[in-house]
C-alpha cells in the first residue's frame, strides 16, 4: 500500500529581548553558567514574575507577520511538571487564552523530485512562554549539572495545523518561518544556539484517505536538515510498522541526528498530566486599540512582499530576489548598496556570489561587515567604469575589503590594480605572448581561431588581470594577423 505522511509542527523560537520574560536577568547567549540568574528565575520562595512588555509585543508581532488574530484578552497559565531544569516545577505558558490564533504561511519549495511547489500551512496558534534551563549530562559521571542562564528566556511556540505532507515541505516551512521571524525582529533564530527548535508531529495514512492516523512526536530538532531527515526516517519507520502488521503507538521520540534514527522517550500512558490553570501571579494581557496599532505600524516589510518588489522595481530574476530577501541583513545591505548608486543586478551578483560565500566561510554576519554598502556600490561602479576588471574586483579588491575593511579605491590604488587599456602597454604584452607561444599563434593563423581564448588567458595572466579585455582582445588579433 502507498502511504502519505501528515505533519504538524510545533516551533519554539527564543525572542530577542534584552532581559528574561519575568525578571531582569540578561538573555545573552554563551555566558558562564548561572551568571544570568536571580532569585526570581531560580524560583526562590516568595519571588514573583512580572511580564516583559517587549516579549508580549514580539509575540504579537510574530502573530501579525503570520496573519494571526490577536486575542483581545490573553492570559498566562501554569503547566505543572517536575524536571530539574524547570525551577518552579511549572512552566508559565499559555493554554486557555493564547495571544495569537489562526493565520497562514505560504511559501515556495522544491519537492523530492525537484519540482517547484507552493506550500500553504495554517497556523493554529502562537503563544508566549518561558524557556527552561540547561542540563549538562556528560561532564561528571554520576551527576547532572544545571545551568539556569536560559531559564526564563522568552519563547514563542508556533503550532501549525497538520497541513504538511513531505519532509521537504516541512523543511521549507521552517526555513521561511525563520526568515519571517528574523525580518520581524522577533527572534535571531540561531538554530545552532537552540534559539529556534522544532517538534515534529507525524502520522501516516493510506494515500488518499482523509482520516488521521496515530501520531508520534519528535522533540527539539535544531536544524532544517535534521527536520527533513527525521521526518523521512519516521515516515519509513511507521510504514514498516504498519506493513509488518503492527500498530503505531502514540509516543514521544528523540531524534539522534548523528545516528540518523529516533528512539522512544515515553508513551502517552507515561505522559504527564500537566494540570494547567491560570497563573494567579499574573494579570490579563489586553493588546487592543492604540497598542495593537503601534505594533502593527512598527512591523517591517516581510520577505514575500519584498521579493515581489525586488522583481518589479529592480528587475531582478525571481531567483535572485528570493535569495536576497531570505535574510533581513542581506536585503538591507543590498538595498543600501543600490541606494548608494550601485546597479541592482551587479550588486546582486556580488552579494549572491562571492560575498555570501565568504560570509559563510568566515562565519560573518551581513549586519556587521568590515565595509559598508556604499563601498560595495563604489566597487561595482569601478567595474562598470572600466577602472578594474570584474575578476580583480571580485578577487583581490573584495578580499582586501573583507580582510581589512579598506575602501575599494584605496585598495585599487595601493595595489596598482587599475585596469590597463593603454594601447602601447597592451600591444607589448600581446607581442610577448605571441613570442612565447609560437605554436599556438601559428594554429590561429592556420584558421583555428578558437585558440584565441587561450592566448587571451595568457594576456590576462601576464597583466595580472588588469588588461581591459575588449581592448586587449582587439590588439591581440591585430598582432596575430600581422
Amino acid at each position: 500500500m502507498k502511504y502519505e505522511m501528515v505533519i504538524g509542527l510545533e516551533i519554539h523560537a527564543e525572542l530577542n529581548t534584552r532581559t528574561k520574560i519575568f525578571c531582569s536577568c540578561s538573555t545573552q547567549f554563551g555566558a558562564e553558567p548561572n551568571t544570568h540568574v536571580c532569585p526570581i528565575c531560580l524560583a526562590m520562595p516568595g519571588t514573583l514574575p512580572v511580564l516583559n512588555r517587549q516579549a508580549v509585543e514580539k509575540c504579537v508581532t510574530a502573530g501579525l507577520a503570520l496573519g494571526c488574530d490577536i486575542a483581545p484578552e490573553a492570559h498566562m497559565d501554569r503547566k505543572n511538571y517536575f524536571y530539574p531544569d524547570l525551577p518552579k516545577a511549572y512552566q508559565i505558558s499559555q493554554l486557555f487564552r493564547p495571544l495569537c490564533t489562526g493565520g497562514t504561511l505560504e511559501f515556495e519549495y522544491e519537492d523530492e523530485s525537484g519540482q517547484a511547489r507552493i506550500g500553504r500551512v495554517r497556523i493554529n496558534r502562537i503563544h508566549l512562554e518561558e524557556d527552561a534551563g540547561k542540563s549538562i549530562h556528560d561532564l561528571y559521571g554520576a551527576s547532572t549539572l544545571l545551568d539556569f542562564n536560559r531559564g526564563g528566556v522568552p519563547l514563542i511556540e508556533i503550532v501549525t495545523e497538520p497541513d504538511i505532507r513531505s519532509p521537504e515541505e516541512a523543511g521549507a516551512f521552517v526555513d521561511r518561518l525563520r526568515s519571517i521571524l528574523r525580518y520581524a525582529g522577533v527572534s535571531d533564530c540561531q538554530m545552532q544556539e537552540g534559539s529556534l527548535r522544532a517538534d515534529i508531529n507525524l502520522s501516516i495514512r493510506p494515500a488518499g484517505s482523509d482520516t488521521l492516523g496515530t501520531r508520534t512526536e519528535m522533540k527539539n530538532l535544531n536544524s532544517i536538515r535534521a527536520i527533513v531527515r527525521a521526518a523521512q526516517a519516521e515516515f519509513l519507520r511507521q510504514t514498516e510498522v504498519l506493513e509488518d502488521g503492527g500498530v503505531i503507538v502514540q509516543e514521544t521520540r528523540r531524534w539522534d541526528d548523528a545516528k540518523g534514527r529516533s528512539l522512544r522517550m515515553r508513551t502517552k500512558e507515561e505522559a504527564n498530566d500537566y494540570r494547567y490553570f491560570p497563573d494567579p501571579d499574573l494579570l490579563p494581557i489586553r493588546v487592543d486599540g492604540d497598542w495593537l496599532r503601534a505594533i502593527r505600524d512598527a512591523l517591517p516589510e516581510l520577505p514575500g512582499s519584498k521579493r515581489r518588489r525586488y522583481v518589479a522595481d529592480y528587475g531582478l530574476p525571481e531567483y535572485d530576489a528570493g535569495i536576497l530577501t531570505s535574510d533581513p541583513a542581506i536585503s538591507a545591505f543590498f538595498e543600501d548598496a543600490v541606494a548608494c548608486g550601485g546597479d541592482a543586478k551587479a550588486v546582486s551578483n556580488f552579494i549572491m556570489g562571492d560575498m555570501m560565500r565568504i560570509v559563510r566561510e568566515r562565519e560573518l554576519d551581513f549586519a556587521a561587515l568590515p565595509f559598508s554598502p556604499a563601498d560595495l556600490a563604489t566597487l561595482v561602479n569601478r567595474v562598470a567604469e572600466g577602472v578594474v576588471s570584474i575578476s580583480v574586483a571580485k578577487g583581490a579588491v573584495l578580499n582586501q575589503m573583507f580582510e581589512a575593511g579598506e575602501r575599494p579605491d584605496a585598495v585599487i590604488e595601493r595595489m596598482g590594480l587599475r585596469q590597463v587599456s593603454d594601447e602601447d602597454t597592451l600591444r607589448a604584452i600581446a607581442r610577448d605572448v605571441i613570442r612565447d607561444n609560437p605554436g599556438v599563434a601559428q594554429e590561429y593563423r592556420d584558421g583555428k581561431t578558437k585558440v584565441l581564448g587561450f592566448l587571451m588567458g595568457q594576456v590576462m595572466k601576464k597583466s595580472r588581470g588588469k588588461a581591459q579585455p575588449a581592448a586587449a582582445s582587439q590588439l591581440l588579433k591585430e598582432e596575430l594577423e600581422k
Partner: protein
Amino acid sequence: MKLFTMPALMLARKIHEGSLTAPEVAEAFLGRVKELDPKIGAFLLTDRAWTLEAAERAQRRIDALKAEGKPVPPLAGVPVALKDNLCTRGVATTCASRMLENFTPPYDATAVERLFESLMVPLGKCNMDEFAMGSSTEYSAFGPTRNPWDPSRVPGGSSGGSAAAVAARMAPLALGTDTGGSIRQPASFCGVTGLKPTYGAVSRFGAVAYASSLDQIGPIGRTAADCAALFEVVRGRDERDATSADIDQPACLRDIGAPLDGMKIGVPSQYMGEGIAPAVRQAVEAALSRFRELGCSVTEVSIPALDYALPAYYILSCAEAGSNLSRFDGVRYGYRAQGAGDIDELYLRTRSEGFGAEVKRRILLGTYVLCAGYYDEYYKKALRMRSLVKAGYEKALGSADILMTPTAPIPAFGIGEKVDELSMCMADICTVSVNIAGLPAISFPCGFTDGLPVGLQAIGRPFGEAALLRAAHAYQQITDWHVRVPALSEGGRA
C-alpha cells in the same frame, strides 16, 4: 506603665520625644521574649545582632531627621515581629517547615524592606502552621505555639506565633499573612487586633506563597490605631508584584478618630446561625449594640453564596498551593534527602521528608482538583463560585458600609483537640469568603468566654480599610477588651 504594655504608637511617641531610645525598646522586648517565650513558643528565631543593629541604625536616623527638622516616620524605632514566611535577607526564613529549615534568603520581602525604610526594628521570626497551612499553629514542624490566655490551647493560625507574641506583650506589633483567615482567626483567639488588607493593597513579593490569589500580608497589634499605622508602612504599589494595586490608598490613621455617626452595619445571616457557639454569638450581639450606641445602624443581610465559600476556598487554595510548593524539590535550595540514586528518588524523598502531613494533604487535594477531567468540575467551578461570592458581597456592601460577623465560630480550642480534617476547616468558616472576594477585614476583641477572647470581624469594600479601622478604633475607645493582658505575662490589666 511598663514599656511592653504600651501600644506601638505610644512607644513611637516616646522614642520621638527622646524619653526612650530604639535600642532600649528593642532590648526590653528581646528580654521579654527571652523570659516568656519558653512558655509560649511564639518565636522560631530571634537574632540580637540583627535587631540591635537595626535599632541603632533607626535611632541614628531618627536623631538626624530631628536635627534637620524633617518628619520622622510614625512607627520609627518600634520593634515588629515577623511571621516566618516573610523573607528576610541574611536571616533564616523557614515557613515552619523542615523543607526550609536552613534556608536564608538573599533578599527582603517588600513589606520587610518598607519596615526598614520606616525605621522599624525586626524583633524576630514567628511560628506558624507549616507554609501557612492550618488554623492552629499545631502544624509547625518545630512544635506548637501556645495561647497566652491558656497555654493548653492553640493560638489559632496560621499566624499563631505573631498573634501570641502580640497578646503576650512580647512584641508591640507583628506582621502576619492571611489566605483564609490566618491573621484574623489567631487575632481573635489571642485577643488582639488583626487586619487582612484588600487583595493587592500590600505587595506579596517575598512572602512565601501559599495561595497566590488569596494571600495578603497584614498587621497584628494591640489596637486598631497601631494596625492602621503599620498597614500604612507596608502597603502600596510594588513593581515586583504584578498583583499589587496601582491606586492611591486612602489615609487610615489620620481620620481614625472620626465619629461613626450614620455608619450602616450589615450582619450576614449566614455567619450568625448554626455552627456559631452561643457564647460567641452573644459576644458579637453585645458588640453590635455598642455600635448602635456609637450611632451605627445594624441590619441583617443575606449572602447565600457564602454557604459555598468553604469548598471553593479549599479548591482554589489547594490548587494554587500544590503548584506553588512544587518548587521545593531539593535542587536549588532548601532540604535535600541524602543518598538518592536518581532524580525521581531525590524528588520523592526530599518532598516526603521535607513536608508535614497537612501540607501533603493540601498538595494532594490541589493535584486532584486540577487533574485532567476534574478541572471543570472543581477548579473552574470554584472560580465561578468566586464570582458569586464577590457579587454577593458587592451587593451587601452596596447597602451597608461594612459587614460584621464573628471572626471564628468558637474560641480557642485545645492543643490536639481538632483531629479530623473537617472540624479544623470549620474554624475558618467566617473568614475564607473574604479572601475569595479579595476584600479587607479586621478582627478585634469583643468579649471573653471562659477566660478566652472572642473576636469580632468587620468586612469592608475594596480598599475600605479606613472604615474598618475607624469602626474598630471607635469600639476600642468605649471598651477595654483589647487592653486586657493574659495572666501568664504578669502584670494583669495595664
